[in-house]
């Protein structure tokens, strides 16, 4: 079966995309992804905080202690030219584009409105084929309503879209009162793709030091269930392409995502654990399954088990919950 597909209007040779991870920091790794059959790569995220804070931090350290003491007017030779983290990110895009032919999707991660959104344009200028806008936000302020949060997401998307011509996908958290409504609003606001879902790094507590420690827990295949449900529900209800991320570790996982309606299945944890070469296995498992089940094309497969196309629409809603409980009880 021909695995070539389209995502965000880009031609991909396979529906397997490497999602944002530290792996894409090295050009060599991205070459390996291409060799192993990836359809596209989403780069590691450039964070809003990075854009803001690196500037402030650098200014702070170059300024602190200056012009205070007769013998030392300052402490560092400020180079005539240098690149801050964001500039280095742009340079990285340029280098990748020169090194590989697979589409490169830049990732911009933020949660507030501000000058950082302008970086989308600079990513486009640097050669990014598309943007993935990662709207990572923990809404902790009781004074901010769900409506406010949704509005902010839409405003940020609009702001970024204002600056760029390349397609923009939005990576979301699942924590909306009405996920479907939110998805449609983003769709209407011009999102070319919806990436479901963001994984929050959850805090942990160090019992000896009594400190909160950030804890990176890689996904397991079980994590796929959540995106699977929402992709199945949203498929056909939004124009934006859908991408499944979280919990895709095997070819079977990828197949499930495609059946639910995803344009692409995204991998990260599996590659971090097993290496980039694991992509080849996933790809061949995907091909093997399609061949064994005599699928003629990806189009035939994609969305065939979405809520719309699956016989029982409630399977993805509350009824499914009741059934699961029964199964457990039994």
């Amino acid at each position, binding site marked *: 079966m021909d695995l070539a597909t389209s995502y965000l209007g880009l031609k991909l040779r396979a529906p397997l995309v490497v999602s944002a991870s530290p792996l894409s920091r090295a050009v060599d790794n991205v070459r390996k992804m291409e060799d192993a059959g990836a359809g596209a790569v989403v780069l590691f995220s450039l964070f809003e905080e990075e854009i803001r804070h690196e500037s402030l931090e650098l200014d702070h350290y170059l300024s602190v202690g*200056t*012009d*205070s003491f*007769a013998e*030392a007017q300052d402490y560092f030779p400020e180079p005539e030219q*240098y690149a801050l983290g964001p500039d280095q990110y742009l340079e990285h895009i340029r280098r990748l584009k020169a090194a590989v032919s697979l589409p490169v999707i830049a990732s911009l991660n933020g949660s507030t409105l501000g000058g950082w959104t302008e970086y989308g344009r600079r990513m486009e200028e640097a050669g990014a084929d598309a943007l993935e806008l990662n709207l990572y936000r923990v809404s902790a302020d009781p004074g901010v309503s769900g409506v406010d949060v949704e509005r902010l997401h839409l405003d940020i998307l609009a702001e970024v879209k204002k600056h760029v011509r390349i397609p923009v996908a939005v990576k979301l958290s699942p924590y909306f009162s009405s996920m479907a409504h939110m998805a449609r609003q983003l769709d209407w606001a011009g999102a070319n793709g919806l990436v479901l879902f963001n994984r929050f790094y959850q805090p942990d507590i160090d019992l000896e030091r009594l400190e909160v420690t950030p804890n990176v827990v890689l996904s397991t295949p079980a994590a796929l269930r959540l995106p699977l449900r929402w992709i199945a529900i949203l498929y056909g209800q939004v124009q934006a392409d859908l991408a499944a991320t979280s919990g895709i570790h095997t070819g079977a996982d990828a197949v499930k995502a495609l059946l639910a309606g995803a344009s692409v299945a995204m991998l990260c944890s599996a590659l971090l654990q097993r290496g980039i070469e694991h992509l080849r296995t996933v790809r061949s498992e995907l091909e093997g399954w399609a061949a064994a089940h005599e699928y003629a094309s990806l189009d035939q497969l994609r969305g065939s088990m979405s809520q719309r196309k699956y016989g029982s629409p409630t399977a993805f809603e509350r009824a499914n919950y009741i059934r699961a409980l029964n199964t457990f009880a039994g």
Partner: protein
Amino acid sequence: MSKRVTTIQGTEAAASVAHRVSEVIAIYPITPSSDMGESADAWSAAGRKNIWGTVPHVIEMQSEGGAAGALHGAQQAGALTTTFTASQGLLLMIPDMYKIAGELLPFVMHVSARALATHALSIFGDHSDVMAARSTGFAMLASASIQEIHDLALVAHAATLAARVPFVHFFDGFRSSHEIQKIEELDDDTLRRMIDDELVWKYRANRMTPEAPVLRGTAQNPDVFFQSREAANRFYAACPGIVQEQMDRFAALTGRAYHLFDYVGAPDADRVIVLMASGAEAAHETVEALNEAGEKVGVLKVRLYRPFANEQFVRALPPSARTVAVLDRTKEPGASGEPLYLDVVNALYEAGITDRKVIGGRYGLGSKELNPAMIKGVFDEMAAAAPRRHFTVGIVDDVTDTSVPWDPAFTVEKADVTRALFYGLGADGTVGANKNSIKIIGEETDNYAQGYFVYDSRKSGSMTVSHLRFGKRPIRSTYSVNNANFVACHQAVFLERIDVLEKAVPGATFLLNTHVPTDRVWDSLPRHIQQEIIDKKIKFYAIDAYKVARETGMGQRINTVMQTCFFAISGVLPREEAIAKIKEAIRKTYGKRGEEIVKRNYEAVDKALDNLHEIPVPAAVTSTFEKPPVVSDKAPEFVQKVIGAMMARPADLVGEHIPVSLLPSDGTYPTGTTQWEKRNIALEIPVWDPETCLQCNKCVLVCPHAVIRSKVYDGALLKDAPPTFKSAKARGREFPEGTRFTIQVAPEDCTGCALCVETCPAKNKAETRLKAINMAEQPPLRESERANWEFFFHVLPDPDRRGLKVGTVKGSQFLRPLFEFSGACAGCGETPYVKLASQLFGDRMLVGNATGCSSIYGGNLPTTPWTTDAAGRGPAWCNSLFEDNAEFGLGMRLALDKHEEYARELLTRLREKVGPDLADALLTARQKDETEIQEQRARVAELTRRLASLDDPVARQLATVADALVRKSVWIMGGDGWAYDIGYGGLDHVLASGRNVNVLVLDTEVYSNTGGQMSKATPLGAVARFAAGGKRAPKKDLARMVMTYGNVYVAQVAIGANDAQAVRAFLEAEQYEGPSLIIAYSHCIAHGINMQQGLEQQRLAVECGYWPLFRYNPELAAAGKNPLQLDSKPPRVPFKDYAYRETRYSMLAKAKPEVAERLLRQAEAGVAARWRLYEQLAAMPWSGTEAAPAAAAGA
């Protein structure tokens, strides 16, 4: 030729020419010349080329002596060379200078002339350094202004090639080197035309080469040496003519004419002052003003001082001048006159002119002000019937009556000049903003602009005073602004400390930054300020700049806000235009640092004007409070009268209120004076929570300013405690029932660095964000905590040293620090070690301190931190030089050892007379712990008592040295610049001597005091001054080198990683009867870190293996054990995770990512290799036969 103006500092004016006409530049940091070397290094690192299209090589050497040697070699091999230096640095170059001149090698060094260290060090300007080099055979060319520095630098480089005489081009340190002025910049074309390639080729052809070998540097015998010296005469005879020729060529190219001697004034002047460098500008201005007022006076500016051209001098001096006053900015004690004076006397004598009255005066030593009032004082003296032949000006000499009086009210400032004074805090960005303003006005308008900046001597909470002038005519006012028509006070707290309006003229404008709401600002002023505003009819504006800075995300930096207000009120530029220019300048300054910082600055500009308000001035004073006294009336008289006078007017260049009679004549000062300077600079101070506290005393150990103290004491003493005084039951079996424990903070001495909070291991169980010590706002706590501190310090006794476990962190920290409240940076990484040494050994300690940060925070007036215990004992401290510190400390040891030996000899002779039991006990005392030392002290006291009753010359002799029988501890302290570089040879020799000295290297891995220049301790891959492209060589492993002697105790410590190991190392080092070396990791502002995280950086440095902790104790070897003990674990954190938290490393990754990556890999490999090596050394089986040679050769 196009004329391009630029607004630059004097150092840049010199370096910009020097760099463009040189091939090899050897440098070494020294204030105030470091900036020139830094510029040269940065330009070469950025690939800036000289006029021949190639990038000059810049190399930092281990000392100025090394730089001079390298340059001498480069000259012999045919390269065009230059260097930059001052003061002690110039002294170190003198031997090579004789060689260079003797070999007729063209060469120019640019010297920002600075005082030589005598009774004290002074970083400030005078001519004592260049005068010390006047006999080397170098020509000497003096510049008086920034334009002249730029111009005469080129004249010097052109003339040296033609004359074959090397040149010192000098100008006044700070006054000229650090003044900013608008000047016409020399373009490359002018440089090309001035530097004759034919002469360059001729010079090059004279180089050493095996293609045409010659021999130089012979040793000559009496038959030819003398004649050979005379053979060079013709070059010196021709030199003045050649210089004038080059000046004339320069004038033809630029229109700016110079002469060997330039006269300004009445053609028929009856009185003429002769002087050189910046003072000549003030004199020029004064002469013009006096002549306008009808006097007939003049000034003769000396440009070429060596060779001194007698004929040209006499020709330049108006024949009408009946009285000539020669002003020297140097002092030559014991001479019949200062050097320039003697040259003038001789020139006139040799010309047969004997009818002039020539008098000589000293002025301006150590940057003492020379202003028109003082110059007029000299002219008035000259007009007297019998003027003093030798005088001083600018001081009040009430001891030997040398000083001429002057009228401080006299001024020559014109109305068309805007004169502004800004009082700021180092951290608030005031100076930076003013530098920006000068550039804007200088380069964007047709105004001339001048800026000069004065700092106090503290590294934390320092006051800055900016002196700015703008006007349509060139500005020659080389002195402070004394008649300001604009005064800005950027910190309201200064109003209570100094008289900021003292120098405001009637009708001036006053801008105050205050948090007080507009309608209450007037009432918030002290009475004297209100009175001055009313009396002088001052227009008064106020702004809450910190509020604007906070709202725009600028933190504590109010620079942009205050700069905007200045432009808005002063009217130097139309408001809209000024704002546009400020924003342009912001883009230029901060653009590289990212859009966010530019955006925030723009917002600060926009919001500043909305918050600026004119304050209505009522007709009468309404305030009810006065400025409090500077020093408490409880302070000793000397502190109140002398130190207090210095504190009353910080950063004051005139200081006429402190006459000679008040000052010690040999530089001896009392210790323990910082306690009288309550600076109140912390916005927040630590507050102790007794419930949560584990009583570990770690906060006490790490406090850089010794403001956190702990005591254990009898709880009964608490009956007199102030109401808010806190205590807890003392933990520890060693303390009897009823013992209480208190951690107390000195609220007015704290700098608010929060290192204590960072290090506190305890957590409040109910609220984990809190520790046992937490920061809280200072002002509400000031009064109560001041009372608590008084009770803690004066009422509660220090614990008995004999009962404490001083080998532990906790126990050691009950010992009173005898180093307190220094002016070091907030969060300083050095001072905790210094303080620890003072706690453990301070009452019997002599300290030799190398010049550098530790000598500045340790010994810079007005107040100094070394202090005494309750019995009046404490460290005796002295700074000699930078390069000689190890030898200096060794000298102390030698004296102590000799006196001890002598005392023992005398005591043995007097054994029967003083009592055999006492004598024997004194002679055999072990003195290894506190108890034994105190017992010996008691014996010495008894001996002294008995000696007093003996009528015996031997007894009288013994009485003068009896004190040597108590064990003394000699500490040789300094930074890595000293230990690794300039003082290394001496250090090596001292350690090899076997004598019982303790060396503490405060290793910040750069020359911190002079602004972070690279030393051999700087790590691979770090960016530093003089290593703008990242250091390419690894850090010298000083510890391992020293271990090779086998009989030196060596420890590497980092209190942030293992404080107990550090305490142990200090004790072992001191107890070892031989030389000891402790290398202490000292985080530093020059690392580009959050200083609050300094201890965490220390931990990471150790955990990544970069800074292994170890102790090498020769006593173990003597006992048959491996002397090396590793005290840290194998690397468990990647080096990058430590390094890239510091700007010194991360900066290179931003500027040159590939280079940074390569150096990072090399550094990682180096760290791993070094760790393996140490591990193997520590694991080596040790049979005992390798035992080190006897430790204390001399003891």
